[in-house]
C-alpha cells in the first residue's frame, strides 16, 4: 500500500521552563514555574518537571501553584525569547526536508513518508528509518539548543501525538501498525483530542472509561458525542486520515492581561486595550494579514469570563481600528460594570491583506457614545 504514511510528532519538554533552566544554571533540578509570581495575580505559563510533581500545571492561577509548590521558583515569561528559540528549533526540523505542520510554539507534526523508506507493515523493521530520523532530530536539538524534545512516530497524527506524550520527557516512542490497537487500549478516553470534560463525563456515565472500552462498544457513539462519533470510533482504533497541513496559517492572534488588582479604571483599561491592539497589529503586519473579526475577553473578580465579538466588512490592519472596535464591544453591553480581573483582545478571520481598501480622510468619524 503506497498510501501508508509515516508521521512524526515532536513536542518540546516543558519548553518555557526548560529554556529558563538552560539559560540560568542555578535553576536546574529545581521546581521552576514560568508565569506571574503568586503574590501577584495571573497564571502559570509553564512548569518544569520538578514543579509538575507537586501538581503545578499550566493555566493554573499562580496563587494555587504557589500553594501546591511552596518552594517553586517563579520566573517571568520572556515570550519574545521563546519565539526566537522556537524559530531555531523549527529550522532544525526544516533541515530534514519533511512537510511540517507547526501546532504551536513548541510542537509540530512532520510527514516524513517521502524521506524514510517505510517498509511493509508487519515487518519487524517497520519505521526503522523513521526511528533513526527521530533520534537524529532529538540529538540535533539537544546539541544545538541544549533542550530536550519528545518524539512520537506512527502512521498518523492522532497516534503520533499520543506516542510523543507516552514517555515524556526526553522520550522517543514508535507505535507499529500491528500494535496500535493494543497501545491505545489502556489509555483513558480523555487522552483523545476532542474529548473534554463534558464528553468525558458523558462517556463515563455510559461505563466507557478507556479507549479499550470505546473499541469494544457495540453501539453508535453519536448518542454520546454527536457528530464526533464516527471520528471517535476511528481514533479508538488508531485510524486518522487528517493530512499534514503545511499551509498552516494563524487562525487567530490575541493578547490578554491579568491585572495586579481588579480594576474598572477607564484610563487603565483603555491603555491596556491600546497596548494589546498594537501588539496584535505588529503580528498582523509581520504576517501580512488582515482580520475580519475582533474579539474581547473579560474576566471579573469571581472568575466569570465573557467574550464578545464583532465582524467587519473590510479586513482590519490598523491598531486604532482594533482598539476602537474593542472599546465599542465593551461599551455596547456596558460590560465594565464592576472591576475586571483580566482583559484581552483577539482577532480572527485572518486573510492575506493583498489589496487594501483605503478610507476616506475623515478627521473624526462620529466618536463613541
Amino acid at each position, binding site marked *: 500500500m503506497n498510501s501508508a504514511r509515516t508521521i512524526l510528532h515532536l513536542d518540546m519538554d516543558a519548553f518555557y521552563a526548560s529554556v529558563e533552566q538552560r539559560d540560568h544554571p542555578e535553576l536546574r533540578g529545581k521546581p521552576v514555574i514560568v508565569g506571574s509570581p503568586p503574590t501577584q495575580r495571573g497564571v502559570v505559563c509553564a512548569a518544569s518537571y520538578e514543579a509538575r510533581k507537586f501538581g503545578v500545571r499550566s493555566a493554573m492561577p499562580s496563587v494555587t501553584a504557589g500553594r501546591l509548590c511552596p518552594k517553586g521558583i517563579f520566573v517571568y515569561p520572556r515570550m519574545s525569547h521563546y519565539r526566537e528559540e522556537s524559530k531555531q528549533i523549527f529550522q532544525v526540523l526544516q533541515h530534514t526536508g519533511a512537510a511540517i505542520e507547526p501546532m504551536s510554539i513548541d510542537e509540530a507534526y512532520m510527514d516524513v513518508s517521502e524521506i524514510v523508506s517505510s517498509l511493509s507493515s508487519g515487518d519487524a523493521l517497520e519505521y526503522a528509518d523513521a526511528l533513526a530520523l527521530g533520534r537524529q532530530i532529538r540529538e540535533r536539538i539537544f546539541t544545538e539548543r541544549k533542550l530536550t524534545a519528545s518524539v512520537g512516530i506512527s502512521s498518523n497524527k492522532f497516534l503520533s501525538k499520543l506516542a510523543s506524550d507516552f514517555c515524556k520527557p526526553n522520550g522517543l516512542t514508535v507505535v507499529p501498525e500491528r500494535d496500535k490497537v493494543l497501545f491505545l487500549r489502556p489509555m483513558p478516553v480523555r487522552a483523545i483530542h476532542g474529548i473534554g470534560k463534558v464528553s468525558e463525563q458523558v462517556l463515563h456515565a455510559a461505563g466507557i472509561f478507556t479507549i479499550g472500552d470505546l473499541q469494544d462498544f457495540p453501539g453508535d457513539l453519536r448518542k454520546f458525542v454527536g457528530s464526533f462519533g464516527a471520528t471517535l470510533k476511528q481514533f479508538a482504533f488508531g485510524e486518522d486520515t487528517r493530512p499534514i497541513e503545511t499551509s498552516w496559517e494563524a487562525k487567530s492572534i490575541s493578547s490578554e492581561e491579568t491585572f495586579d488588582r481588579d480594576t474598572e479604571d477607564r484610563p487603565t483599561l483603555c491603555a491596556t486595550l491600546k497596548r494589546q491592539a498594537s501588539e496584535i497589529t505588529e503580528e498582523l503586519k509581520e504576517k501580512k494579514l488582515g482580520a475580519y473579526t475582533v474579539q474581547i475577553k473579560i474576566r471579573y473578580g469571581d472568575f466569570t469570563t465573557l467574550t464578545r465579538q464583532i465582524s467587519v466588512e473590510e479586513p482590519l490592519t490598523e491598531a486604532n481600528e482594533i482598539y476602537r*472596535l474593542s472599546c465599542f464591544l465593551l461599551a455596547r453591553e456596558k460590560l465594565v460594570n464592576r472591576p475586571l480581573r483580566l482583559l484581552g483582545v483577539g482577532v480572527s478571520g485572518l486573510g492575506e491583506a493583498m489589496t487594501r481598501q483605503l478610507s476616506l480622510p475623515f478627521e473624526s468619524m462620529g466618536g463613541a*457614545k
Partner: protein
Amino acid sequence: MNLAIAKDQIIHGLQAVQNVVSTRTTLPILSNVLLRAEENMLELTATDLDVTVSCSVEAAVKKVGSTTVPVKKVYSLISALTNPEIEFEVDDKNACSIRAGSSFYKINGLAAEEFPPIQKFKENKKITLPQEKLKSMLKKTSFAISTDESRYVLNGIFISLKDHKMTMVATDGRRLALVDEEVELGDTTGEFIVPTKAVNELSRLLSDKGEVEIKFTENQVAFALKNEKGASILIISKLVEGNYPNYRQVIPAETKERIPLVREEFLAALKRAEIMTSDKANSVKLHFTKNNLAITANSPEVGEARESIAVNYKGKEFAIAFNPAYMIDPLNALSCDEVYLELIDELSPGVLKTNAPFLYVVMPMRLS
C-alpha cells in the same frame, strides 16, 4: 369594535406596516398590530419602538374601537381567506372574531392601551416636497449607508435643510454619496440622521405621485404621505443620536482628470469584470491610456477579465483600483446617460458626478 372591510384593503394595510415588526422581540405587544376603527376607516399601526408605521384604509365601521392582534397570524390567515369581504368583531376581552363567508376564526389579542403610544409632532418644523423627489434622493444615497454597527452615526442618511435646499449624505467611511435638491423650505432649517430601517421603509412606501410631508423634532422625524392606492401612511422614526462627521472635508477640492463615460456601458463592463474577482482579490483596475479605458480583474483562483471602452482621455497613462461594488452601486442607482469620473492619482479619492446635483466620492484600493 365592529367592522366590515374588503380583503384587498386590509391586506394592503397589513403589507404596509408589518415589515417593521421584529421577529425577535421580548415584548409580546410588539408582535401585534394596533387596529383602530374610526368612521369609515381602519388604521393599522406596527412598531419596533424605533420605527412606527401606520396605514389607514377604507372600512365600513359599525362600531368604533381598537385592539391589537398578532400581525403574522392575522396576515397569514387573511391572505389565505378567499371571501372578498371580511368582518371583524372584537369583544371586551380583546378576542377578535373574523368572519369571511363560511370561515370563522377567533384570534386572541391584547388591549390597545398596552400598545406604545404614538408621539405627537409640533407644527413648526415642517416641509413638503414631491414624493418622487424624496424617493429619488434616497435611491441615490442609501446604498452608501454603513452597516458597521460600531459606527452608529453612519447607520443612516444625514439630511440637512437650509438655503432652499435639501441635502442628503450617506457614507460608510470608504465611499460617500451626496445629493441636493431645491425644496420649498419656508422658514424651516435643520439637520438630522434618519436611521437605516426608516430609510428602507420610506423607500418602500413612497410612490411617484403626490407629496410627502416631513415633520421633525430634536429626536424624531415623521413622514406623512398617500400611496398610489390612496391609503394614508405615516412613518415615525427615532433619529440617530450624535454628530454626523464633517463630510465636506473628504470631498476633493479639485481634480486632474475628468473623464466622461456612458453610464450603461461602464456599468455593464464593471459587472462583467466583477465576476472574475474573489474574496482575496476583490478589486478591478481602471487603466487609462489615450482614448481608452481598460477594466481588468485578476484573481489567481478564478481567472481574469479585460474590458476595453473608448473614452475621451488625453492625459498620461494611469491606473487605479477600486472595489467593483463601490462603482457599480452608484451607477445602478443613477438613471442618466452620462457620468463623469474625476481622478487625481492612484491613491486619492475618485469622484463620480452627473449633470444633476449628485456627487459620489470613493476611495481606491491599494495593491500590494
